[in-house]
């Protein structure tokens, strides 16, 4: 049987079939492993855009201590980060800087919009200097409502993001 299959004339077909089988066998566990790694290292860029950074700071404090999940560890360099937590209002002066920061980050990268101002503009829906939400600037993965959100809500948002990454196809 096998001898019939492995003929010189259909060796190419066999190799490509084998490749398919291998990819199918490895893809899922490998992708799972990659996603598992990404889930537990959601490190955000240290960019504070407005007042939600207060609750972001409180989330890293001793009471909520998000680092026990391995996420949201305040980090200095944006080249080693894969998460942007947009902490509040994006003004017209800040928006190009935010995009500049996002563009410099390596893939894969995720965005959490924290607070009403980052989602829709919130209180500042009629202000002359505030963008109505950051959807026009960055692609958002998870929305965390509140003004500012409680640290619990932020942790819940991060867990939603982890769920989302689990279901994503690792590349």
């Amino acid at each position, binding site marked *: 049987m096998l001898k019939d299959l492995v003929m010189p004339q259909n060796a190419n077909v066999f190799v490509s079939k084998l490749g398919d089988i291998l990819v199918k066998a490895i893809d899922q566990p490998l992708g799972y492993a990659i996603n598992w790694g990404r889930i537990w290292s959601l490190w955000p860029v240290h960019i504070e855009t407005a007042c939600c950074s207060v609750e972001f700071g409180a989330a890293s404090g001793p009471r909520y201590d998000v680092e026990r999940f391995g996420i949201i560890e305040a980090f200095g360099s944006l080249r080693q980060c894969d998460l942007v937590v947009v902490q509040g209002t994006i*003004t*017209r*002066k800040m928006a190009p800087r935010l995009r500049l920061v996002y563009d410099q980050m390596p893939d894969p990268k995720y965005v959490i919009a924290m607070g009403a101002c980052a989602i829709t503009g919130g209180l500042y*829906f*009629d*202000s*002359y*200097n505030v963008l109505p939400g950051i959807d026009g600037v960055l692609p958002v993965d998870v929305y965390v409502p509140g003004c500012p959100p409680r640290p619990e809500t932020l942790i819940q948002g991060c867990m939603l993001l982890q769920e989302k990454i689990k279901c994503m196809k690792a590349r």
Partner: protein
Amino acid sequence: MSNTQNKSNLNGDVHIHKNTDSNSIDKKEDDRPEFETNLANTLLHNFGEKIKIDFIKKNRIKVNVQKENIVEIAKFISLNMKFDHAEAVTGIDYPEQNEIEVVYHLGSYEDNLSNQILALSTSAIREDDPTPGSDRTKLPSLRNVFYSVEFHERECFEMLGVYFENHPDNRRLLLPEDWADIPPLRKDFKIKGR
């Protein structure tokens, strides 16, 4: 700190004008606090027609001056009356009167004056079609008298378009660099949906 204490500690430089001028404030009104009235009278005595007292309340005085005299009067307030810093510089747009009022809230860290705020107000001509910096909306800067107004005046320049002459650094402070609209705190600048 009560007003009676204030009066006894009053600095020697300030001469309290006791004679009732035609221009001085009528002291018969009981609700006018005494210490503040004396301060206002000091100004009236020295400048007479040049200043106009808007109101005298407890701990608050507001005087209105012409923009030609403001530097001179501010120097007097700073040197002789010991008001040493500015708490706020507020620009207010009055489109009907065609003027922009600028109010300097002056405070003092001297012991006897520390509860007082003297609001020194002046007004500039308002242009309907503003080009900040190059139109007639100009005022003399008080930066050389009160050093602390430097950033406040910069803010007033970008928000109301009032150019302060002799200000060393009339640049934009808070607004985005590419702001090309009319100054936002003017009344004819409408915000979204209103």
